[in-house]
């Protein structure tokens, strides 16, 4: 893990309110699947850095998928090439790169960049409407309005394919509410081999502020350092 300067080398709309932002850093360790980085805009006064999954990495160049949500994401997606960023990473634990079944809604797909296009893995990917889906190869799509793939919730799409889900690892990512809804819908067999990457409001991102804890069977754990990936059955959501 290091803190370094990054320069935006490309910033383009990817889908809906999601931008694909490429950042050339001064130096960066190689990240593993599912790891994230903290990003700040050093020239814009005090703000906490924000966590974003490292979608792709090639040496010192990191690609992020950033969805407009509040203050900092609104600014980031408007930043021009050449803007300086503060980057701390790579952070958090990671997914094993064994073949996997993946369930990702919206910008959470960014946690699975390394799995996209792999023949040994199966990806369920959903959004509100087809314009919100970034252009990737997934196996099953869902949209709430039915404009692409299954009409409705991603979890419901997944359940219609339940019989096809073999013994591969099962990975899911997203806000706690989405993961909770998923856990409440699936059977124990799936739950027992599911790993979930959680989102939490973060102060530091590297384990020191104790601001990002979630409740688990072994007490409060830091999402940024003990996670972001937890075994689903450990979580008390």
């Amino acid at each position, binding site marked *: 893990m290091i803190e370094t300067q990054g320069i935006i080398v490309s910033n383009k709309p990817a889908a809906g309110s999601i931008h694909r932002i490429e950042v050339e850093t001064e130096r960066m360790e190689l990240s593993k699947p599912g790891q994230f980085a903290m990003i700040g805009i050093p020239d814009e006064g005090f703000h906490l850095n924000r966590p974003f999954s490292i979608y792709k990495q090639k040496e010192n160049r990191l690609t992020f998928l950033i969805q407009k949500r509040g203050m900092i994401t609104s600014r980031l997606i408007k930043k021009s090439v050449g803007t300086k960023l503060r980057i701390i990473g790579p952070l958090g634990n990671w997914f094993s790169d064994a073949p996997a079944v993946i369930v990702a809604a919206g910008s959470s797909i960014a946690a699975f960049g390394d799995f996209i296009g792999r023949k040994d893995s199966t990806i369920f990917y959903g959004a509100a409407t087809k314009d919100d889906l970034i252009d990737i190869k997934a196996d099953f799509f869902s949209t709430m309005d039915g404009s692409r793939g299954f009409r409705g919730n991603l979890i419901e799409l997944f359940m219609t394919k339940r019989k096809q889900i073999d013994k591969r690892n099962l990975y899911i990512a997203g806000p706690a509410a989405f993961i909770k809804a998923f856990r409440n819908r699936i059977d124990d067999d799936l739950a027992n081999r599911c790993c979930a990457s959680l989102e939490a*409001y973060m102060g530091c991102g590297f384990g020191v502020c104790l601001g990002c804890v979630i409740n688990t069977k072994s007490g409060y754990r830091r999402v940024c350092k003990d996670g972001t990936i937890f075994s689903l059955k450990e979580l008390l959501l």
Partner: protein
Amino acid sequence: MKSIKAAGLIFANPFIAASGTFGYADSCLDFYHPDLLGGFVLKGISLEPRKGNSPMRIIETPSGMINAIGLENIGIERLIKDKIPFIETLHSVAIANLYAETKDDFIELAEKINEIKRIDAVEINISCPNVKSGGMQFGVSPEMTENLTKNIKKVSSKPVIVKLSPNVTDICEIAKAAEGAGADALSLINTISAMIIDTKKMLPALANVTGGLSGPAILPIAVRMVYQVYEAVSIPIIGGGGISSVNDALQFVMAGASLVSIGTYNFISPASIPVIIKQFNNEVKKTDYSYSDLIGIAHRQHFT
């Protein structure tokens, strides 16, 4: 820069990493070695491990953040077993930050710390706004501050630093009470009691309802308090609150702090303190003054 003597200790430079923002001195290792610091204060420690408050525990605010961690910590036994062996390999000043709910527990904790050779001083946290009992309850009354400080001074074999709360009417009163009871130094300020309401949820944003505000938002309040306390007492002051640059640090020194502490900025730019230290030394050289002359110099200059 020459080393700085304060509270019977020698600091290689005036920069201290603040409690709760530096873990157990191991969180910075990916960024720099803790020996580059003048000193560091460990995360607040209690006799028993503490679970802390339920989430949400932190929230960003204009130019700052509010935290209500609730002093989650591993407890003194695990500190000794798991963390002290690493701290023993370090050379900068190591300060333990003590938290307890009762006077007797504070005393027991101070006695346990006596056994740890590598801890150079204790900072007593009578100013945490995020716990139901203990903490700030001691720090808002001059009598309780005096009584507790006296009792800890009696048993502690280490220099005792009292960390003051800004959540008081007159911080000088508390500062004098601590000095009168034998405190070797004062540390100020701890976070300022604050809250944010989430207007979408129509609820306080933090589960604890209130928390402690830190970061640049509190800097001018902290500078004012250091300035006033410097006039009220003669023991050294560790000044901090919102420091993120050389200029910020210099303000505290000129207000009267012998040492400065950096907290929240460790979250934002964790590799920065050594960079700030270097720039700070250069800035001090550029003035016509020695570092010790700069301490409190704002009190001695005249408006023209």
